[in-house]
């Protein structure tokens, strides 16, 4: 082994030790989701006629942009691709990008790499080991997804190609992340650049799919690595050779990264860090302004994201409704939406729940600033004349207020886009903005629970909060898809909120949840005033 790669097996074992849990979770979660989604789609669209009808909806601009155009759309495998391919490929590619940065530039930024580099390991060992680990993870996950497809009764060659096309997309972005890890001097910067490159690839692919003819996207999809992986056309023409350019981009990127690493200093980026302002704005210097400034980018991005999601839901509601009407009342979706005045309204109500679940993710992230800020700068902040109540209160106020605003914005954009199609965008906009706000007490309850966790068990609170979110997603958003009986799903907090068109709705559970949120938040505040400051 050359000197530049000395110690590779040892470092690889070390990195695996540091990342095994997060890689294992994803390597199992994606194949399990393939199984579940496949089972659900097979059950919902049993006949070729059903599948053709579904494929026709998928070939409309907003769905083509989101999930892509797929060949063999009338087969069970094609349906699985329409429903899940883009989700899986995007998830695997992003997780892989973060994995590359975590074992590469982030280690250099924290100084861990410096500690390791003084030992007998080569100049490129840490980087190359990180890329190999990421590539191995992508391939194993892809293969398992392929096996899941075969277990689900789909053709073997198509299934393996589907799985490996996820791996192919991820490997292409290992090449990109390897380069951004050399360019930026921080882990955040490296991730941000790679994710931007990914977003551009996604956008190019989306525009090409929208402007496609039949199930063939416009030519410029070939400019996007996601386009290559997607055009493997698994379950259809099975174009295996398209995995080659994916692999080639991965290898070329890593090769360029090695060259860059050879000419730069340890810890330095290729792009120098820019100087920032020498003074803080008057607003940033206040108790409320500081956390707002720290969360500024997250707030902006989430608000835009929720607005776009609402518009998307409003856009596809009519199409989905037409599709379901064609399936008759026996479809599980129709049953899940039972109780609404009409199927269309039930659908819109379901989208509102989805929006609320999305907003909840933001709310949890924002509330967890309590823990992150306390661990990082709590010591210096609490040693100034800021009371702990004010300090905690400011963060709770941001999470609660921003969640409320996002609910209104999401509901409003869903209503306006829907109303624009059926007439009366003004009425529908108002109506759905108000209906979305009905979920505010539920989101506030989640905020209060997370705050209480941060108050009582600060070090465990991040884990508790995201586990809670997993449960919420399981019941509120995916409950029916995953086969949980609807009677149980209907009794969960997100489903008891009155929706437009539901006659049997009662408001008292919502009021109760709001009251519980206030009590729990008060408890959290009380505990914050009692306990020691807990460092990282």
């Amino acid at each position, binding site marked *: 082994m050359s000197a530049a790669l000395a110690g590779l097996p040892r470092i690889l074992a070390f990195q695996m030790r540091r990342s095994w849990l997060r890689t294992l979770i994803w390597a199992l979660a994606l194949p399990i989701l393939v199984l579940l989604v496949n089972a659900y789609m097979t059950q919902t669209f049993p006949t070729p006629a059903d599948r053709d009808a579904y494929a026709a909806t998928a070939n409309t601009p907003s769905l083509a942009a989101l999930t892509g155009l797929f060949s063999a759309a009338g087969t069970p495998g094609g349906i699985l691709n329409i429903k899940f391919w883009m989700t899986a490929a995007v998830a695997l590619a992003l997780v892989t990008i973060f994995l590359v940065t975590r074992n590469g530039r982030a280690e250099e930024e924290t100084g861990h790499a410096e500690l390791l580099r003084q030992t007998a390991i080569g100049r490129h060992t840490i980087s190359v080991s990180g890329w190999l680990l990421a590539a191995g993870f992508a391939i194993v996950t892809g293969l398992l997804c392929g096996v899941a497809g075969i277990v689900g009764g789909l053709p073997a060659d198509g299934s393996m190609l589907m799985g490996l096309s996820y791996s192919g997309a991820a490997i292409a972005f290992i090449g990109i992340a390897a380069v951004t890890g050399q360019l930026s*001097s921080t882990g955040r910067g490296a991730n941000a650049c790679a994710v931007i490159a990914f977003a551009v690839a996604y956008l190019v692919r989306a525009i090409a799919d929208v402007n496609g003819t039949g199930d063939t996207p416009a030519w410029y999809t070939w400019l996007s690595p996601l386009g290559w992986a997607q055009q493997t056309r698994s379950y259809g023409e099975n174009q295996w050779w398209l995995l080659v350019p994916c692999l080639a981009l991965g290898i070329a990127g890593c090769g360029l990264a090695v060259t860059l690493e050879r000419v730069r200093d340890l810890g330095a980026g290729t792009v120098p860090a820019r100087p*920032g*302002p020498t003074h803080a704005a008057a607003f940033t210097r206040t*108790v409320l302004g500081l956390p707002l400034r*720290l969360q500024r980018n997250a707030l902006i991005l989430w608000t835009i994201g929720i607005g776009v999601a609402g518009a998307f839901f409003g856009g596809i509601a009519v199409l989905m409704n037409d599709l379901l009407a064609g399936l008759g009342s026996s479809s599980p979706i129709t049953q899940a939406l039972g109780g609404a005045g009409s199927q269309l309204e039930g659908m819109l109500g379901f989208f509102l729940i989805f929006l609320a679940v999305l907003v909840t993710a933001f709310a949890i992230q924002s509330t967890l600033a309590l823990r992150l800020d306390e661990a990082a*700068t709590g010591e210096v902040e609490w*040693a*100034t*004349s800021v009371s702990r109540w004010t300090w905690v209160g400011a963060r709770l106020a941001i999470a609660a207020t921003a969640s409320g605003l996002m609910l209104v914005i999401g509901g409003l954009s869903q209503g306006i886009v829907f109303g624009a199609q059926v007439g009366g965008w003004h009425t529908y906009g108002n109506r759905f903005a108000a209906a979305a706000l009905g979920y505010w007490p539920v989101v506030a309850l989640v905020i209060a629970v997370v705050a209480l966790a941060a108050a009582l068990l600060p070090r465990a609170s991040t884990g508790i909060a995201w586990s809670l979110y997993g449960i919420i997603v399981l019941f509120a958003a995916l409950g029916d898809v995953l086969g949980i009986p609807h009677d149980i799903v209907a009794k969960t907090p997100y489903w008891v909120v009155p929706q437009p068109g539901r006659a049997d709705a009662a408001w008292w559970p919502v009021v109760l949840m709001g009251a519980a949120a206030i009590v729990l938040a008060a408890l959290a505040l009380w505990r914050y005033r009692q306990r020691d400051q807990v460092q990282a």
Partner: protein
Amino acid sequence: MTHAIEATGLTKSFGRTRALDGLNLTVETGTVHGFLGPNGAGKSTTIRALLGLIRFGGKASVLDGDPWIDAVSLHRRLAYVPGEVTLWANLTGGQAIDILSSLRGERDAGRIAAFIQRFDLDPSKKARSYSKGNRQKVALVAALASRAELLILDEPTSGLDPLMEQVFQECIEEVRREGRTVLLSSHILAEVERLVDTVTIIKKGRTVEVAEVKGQTDLEARFLSHYSTAELATTEVAE
């Protein structure tokens, strides 16, 4: 108020570890008081208790107030430099100084600019790209630029170069002349000898000596006498 800090019988346990075990500390107003002890003796824990960051047993008064109950009003009158300075990674040093000063309730832009210049700090760099010494400077500038009656400094010069160490000592001399009080925890005995009037030496969460220092130069011998010999003695007994 003759005592800026008066603590008697401080106790604090973390699980089974007894961090503070009846510690006493008295700092007279207008003096510079050294706070010595080996790693893990309880210096930072004492300081965090005096700042009301953690609960504790025993009696303590800081500037005639209760450090836990009156934390907010006391913190307007004191400034703190932690031993390990963590800043907001994506804000600059200049922003951090402004924020800390404003949150304490007084921000004097003129004084801040003067101290930034004295410590030769680049305030336009993001905190994450500062070295340990530069992060220390950020916290020092924020504390020294305040007009706080009491400065609590936990190993403030670790990571500073000899030139900056000199500047720091000048600043502490000025603070003394202005009649303000300093609690200085440090491992650098020469620095303590030069700067402090009185010193408290602690060991395993207890006070083992309180002494006048100004003008004397036998601090190192006295400091070591509490540890190495005692340590040797216990080893001998154990054997």
